[in-house]
């Protein structure tokens, strides 16, 4: 791998999603990981992206409101009779 092919930080941040999705070619994945291994800034950046995704995944913890459930079960019974 020659020097010209080395990723910059500014390029790396645009490849993070493709990296996490496993969508990079083996060569690009290699360049990504080589850069990452020696760059604390990009390591922190990747970690922040992971933390962001994890937070997004925790937004869902909600339950169906009892009122909506009761209304819908009522609709279900009506449907069943129809």
């Amino acid at each position, binding site marked *: 791998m020659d020097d010209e092919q080395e990723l910059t930080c*500014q390029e790396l941040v645009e490849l993070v999603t493709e990296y996490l999705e496993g969508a990079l070619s083996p060569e690009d994945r290699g360049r990504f990981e080589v850069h990452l291994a020696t760059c604390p800034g990009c390591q922190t*950046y990747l970690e922040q992206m992971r933390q*962001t995704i994890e937070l*997004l*995944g925790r937004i869902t913890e909600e339950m169906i409101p009892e009122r909506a459930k009761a209304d819908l079960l009522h609709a279900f019974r009506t*449907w069943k009779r129809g």
Partner: protein
Amino acid sequence: MAGSAPLDPSPLAASEDDRRLVEALRAGDEGAFTQLLERYHTTLVRLAMIYVTDRAVAEEVAQETWLGVLQGIDRFEGRASLKTWIFHILLNCARTRRHREARSIPFSAFWNPAAEPGEPAVEPERFLPADHPTWPHHWNAFPECWSGLEDRLVARETYAYIRQVIETLPLHQREVITLRDIDGWTASEVCAALGISEANQRVLLHRARSRVRRALEQYLREQ
């Protein structure tokens, strides 16, 4: 789940569990319907919020969707997963609602990333200039580590803030980040539901996640 690489290559047809639920529903099993409500109702409301801004209207759209599910259950053939099928009914209900409100929903299938100016994941001024002698396009100053901020990150206000940020995203970014990261759908499921390519899905996801990260960084720095 979220964050891993859910590029599931298997066909997106209905699972055994889907078929069992559908059979039970056709037979009028209230338990099966309750199970579906508990599994998907809050998701439907959240997805409806992508298209209609009012929470009460979103709740109505979700309820209409369930009625559509019941009316259409005999036509369910299992070519798509139950989740995708329900989502399509929701999409129709939301579209009708928006149409009535005299607004139109742009069609995901025709979305073209090249037509929409992309914003960089990170502000360009965070990097050294192109003519820097040793480190062009490298970090000007490293991003600050968020470890030690866990309490702030998981605070109720932070979640509320993230929700607000998502509401400001362009429609297609909001669709993809909601389905993928909030509701944990796989990439293939999202592509099938929205009728977009894997590559476009990734572009939208990337822009949306980058915007949320940027906003979070700002939020954590401000306080």
